[in-house]
C-alpha cells in the first residue's frame, strides 16, 4: 500500500514538470466556426462572385464593340457573328425569383398559412405578394416564408434579384449583441420602433446579420439584396424587409404589416 502511495505521489509530482506542447489559443477559430454556419451554395460569396464575373463577361461579349475589342486583344482568329445588342441584357439566371434565390418551394399564401404556426403578416401598403415561398429545410424551426414583390409596387427594382421588395418571416429573436461585432465597415445599424415593434435599420455595405431561431440556435443570414434592410420583431416573428428602400419606405411597409 505504501509502495502504491509512493508511486502515486511520484506520478502526481510529474504533472507540474511536464513539457506539454505549446498551448494554442482556440478562441478566435472557435468563434468563427460557431458563427459561420455552412450556407447553401447560392449564398456563398464565391458563388456570388462567380455569378458576377460570368455576368460581366456576358455583358462584355454581348456588346459588339467590346466583343470585337476582346477578340482583337487576344488575337482570336475566329469569326464572331455580330448580333443586335440587347438594350438591357439580364445577368440573372432564368426562373422565378424565389427559386433562383433558394427561398424554398413556391406556394400560395393560403397553403403557406397551413404549414406555419404563426400568422403570416402582410403589408397592406403593398397588397398581396407576386410570389410566395415556403422554406422548411435548414431554416429556423417552424419554417421561413418569403413574400416577393415585383415591379407593381412602384418601388425600384433591385438589380441583384429583380424584385422590388422581399419580406422574409420566421419565428425567433434577433440577437442585438452580434450587430456591433459582425457588421462591416460602412454599414450602420440603427434601432427603430415601428408601430410599437422593436427593430433595426441596417444600411450601407452588404452585410450579414444573426438571429437566434426558436430552437435557440444562432443563424447567419445574408442580406440577399445587399441593400438596405429593416428587421422587425413583431411579437416573436422576425420580419425582414429588404430592397432598394429608404428608411421611410421600409418603415411605411413595416407599419402596414398585419
Amino acid at each position, binding site marked *: 500500500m505504501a*509502495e*502504491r502511495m509512493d*508511486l*502515486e505521489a*511520484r*506520478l*502526481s*509530482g*510529474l*504533472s*507540474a*514538470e*511536464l*513539457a*506539454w*506542447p*505549446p*498551448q*494554442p*489559443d*482556440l*478562441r478566435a*477559430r*472557435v*468563434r468563427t*466556426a*460557431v*458563427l459561420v454556419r455552412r450556407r447553401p451554395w447560392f449564398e456563398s460569396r464565391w458563388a456570388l462572385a462567380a455569378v458576377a464575373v460570368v455576368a460581366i463577361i456576358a455583358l462584355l461579349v454581348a456588346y459588339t464593340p467590346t466583343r470585337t475589342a476582346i477578340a482583337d486583344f487576344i488575337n482570336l482568329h475566329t469569326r464572331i457573328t455580330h448580333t443586335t445588342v440587347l438594350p438591357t441584357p439580364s445577368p440573372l439566371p432564368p426562373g422565378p425569383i424565389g427559386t433562383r434565390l433558394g427561398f424554398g418551394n413556391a406556394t400560395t399564401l393560403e397553403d403557406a398559412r397551413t404549414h406555419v404556426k404563426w400568422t403570416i403578416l402582410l403589408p397592406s401598403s403593398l397588397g398581396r405578394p407576386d410570389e410566395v415561398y415556403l422554406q422548411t429545410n435548414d431554416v429556423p424551426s417552424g419554417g421561413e416564408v418569403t413574400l416577393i414583390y415585383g415591379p407593381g409596387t412602384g418601388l425600384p427594382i433591385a438589380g441583384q434579384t429583380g424584385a422590388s421588395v422581399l419580406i422574409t418571416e420566421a419565428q425567433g429573436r434577433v*440577437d442585438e*449583441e*452580434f450587430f456591433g461585432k459582425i457588421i462591416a465597415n460602412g454599414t450602420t445599424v440603427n434601432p427603430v420602433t415601428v408601430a410599437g415593434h422593436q427593430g433595426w435599420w441596417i444600411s450601407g455595405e452588404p452585410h450579414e446579420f444573426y438571429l*437566434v431561431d426558436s*430552437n*435557440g*440556435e*444562432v443563424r447567419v443570414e445574408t442580406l440577399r439584396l445587399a441593400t438596405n434592410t429593416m428587421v422587425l420583431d413583431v411579437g416573436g416573428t422576425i420580419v425582414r424587409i429588404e430592397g432598394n428602400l429608404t428608411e421611410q419606405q421600409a418603415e411605411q411597409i413595416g407599419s402596414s404589416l398585419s
Partner: protein
Amino acid sequence: MEGRPEDDVELFTRAQRGSVDAFEEIVHRYQQLAFRTAYVITGSAAEAEEAAQDAFVKAFRALDSFRTGAEPRPWLLRIVSNEARNRVRSAGRRTRLELRLAEGFRQGDAAPSPEAAAVEAEERQRLLESVNALDENDRLVIASRYLLELSSEETAAALGIPEGTVKSRLSRALARLRERVEAQAGG
C-alpha cells in the same frame, strides 16, 4: 457585476441563450484542459489542436444538452475525448505518447546538490518513460488521473467508461507500472 469574473453557471446560461461572447470565455477557461486531454489521447499536438477546436464547436451546438448548474468539466471532457478518439480511430494508427519533462525544472524548495538533483531528474524521466511505454488503456488512465490531474468522474468522462471501472483499471495500471519501474531499477 463589474470586476467579478462570471461563474460557470452564468457563463453557460448566457452561452445557452446564444451568446458567443460567453462561449468564447468558456473556451478561454477550458482550452488548456481540452488540448492536453486530446494530446494524451492522440499523442499528436496537431491532432489535439484540431480535436479540441472541433470539440468546442460541437459543444456550442450541444449546449442545450448541458444541464444548468452541472459541473462543466466532465461534460466538456466527454466531448473532447470523443472527438480525439474518433480522430485516432479514423487515422487507424496506434497512438504513441511521448511526454517529456520540462528542461531545468526543479521540484520543491529544497536545494539538493547538483548530483542529487541529477539523480532525481533521471528517476523522474525513467518514471515518465515507463508511463509512455504502458499499453494504451493503462497509459490513458494514469495520464488522466495523475498527469492531467482529473478527478475520478472526469477521468471516467475522458475515457468514456463508468466511474467504477476507473478505479479497477487504475489499480491494475498502477500495478503494471510498478512492475515496469522495479524491473528497470533491477535491470
